[in-house]
């Protein structure tokens, strides 16, 4: 126990706030993961700009978005 500093009084006072924020962040991560799984599984268009020209993403006036 000597290796650890005693818990600061501030952490005790803010425990509920920190716990709430922690749980909110975990829930947010789970939600983003679930959204990703759904979108990838459904085959939604997931491509975006990544520094190289990709002809399949170029929109031509005749055909609209080529996806």
């Amino acid at each position: 126990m000597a290796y650890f500093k005693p818990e600061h009084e501030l952490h005790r006072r803010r425990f509920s706030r920190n716990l709430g924020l922690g749980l909110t962040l975990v829930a947010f991560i789970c939600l983003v993961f679930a959204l990703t799984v759904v979108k990838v599984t459904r085959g939604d268009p997931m491509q975006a700009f990544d520094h190289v020209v990709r002809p399949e993403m170029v929109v031509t006036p005749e055909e609209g978005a080529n996806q």
Partner: protein
Amino acid sequence: MSDTQSFSQTGEAQFGDYVQLLKPRVMSLVVFTALVGLLVAPVGVHPVVGFASILFIALGAGASGALNMWWDADIDRVMKRTQSRPVPAGKVEAGEALGLGLALSGISVVMLALAANLLSAFLLAFTIFFYAVVYSMWLKRSTPQNIVIGGAAGAFPPMIGWAVATGGVSIEAILMFALIFMWTPPHFWALALFMKEDYHKAGVPMLTVTHGRRETRRQILIYTVLLAPVAIWAALTSIGGPFTLAVALVLNAIFLKGAWDIFRRDEAVAEADRYATEKKVFTFSLAYLFLHFAAFLVEAVLKTFGVGGW
């Protein structure tokens, strides 16, 4: 260190205090109307996408609530109804409300764009801007029409829900918007009639203060009369049906009767029974909106069984 010391004197803000900044009661109405807008749309949405979208719409509404509490902290301290809010109660600093509001605004709009589509994210961003800037910062303290135009902010959620599902806006979405937009003035002015001390003390130019209570009663009747055709028109579109039309006719008849009763009373009569009619109409107006949107939802369910709709 002085920051932590000052907080230890006034009491530490807990997680619930930050949740209160998001106006959870308003959020519940936003969640309900946005959910109806999403579910009655003719295009299906994956449950996870739908859940995430409603969550981010609610978060955006909460963010605008936090921005409103930051801006209105001075008048919230004066009004009895709002004195216990986290900022005037000294639990959360106004700057924290601003930071939380701005952060959640950004997160909710970006996440809605990623989860659903750009149109719904744009509508959400516009709603937050409209409520925080147009209503809270500009109209609320400068014109008695604050409630009328500011009501648009509360009317957008079903349209956003519809846009999440369809990627567009149609007459049905506009009529759901119009239903809340036209409902807001009689709803709030009925409240203002029996909460007069609060708005007067805070110097908010509510219609009751600027144009008098006789004129407020007249305006309640006018807006309720204008609301009825909107509600009936909505019931005649693709989101309506015989059931919705029947509900709309009954609800609007009751609301019109209430508005007529308010119009016919004067202050002496209202004071004598402690604004019983005004309070009754205000309470009914809450049920009016809930039941109207519930009817759209029931009609959509009936359609799946082949009995609802036109």
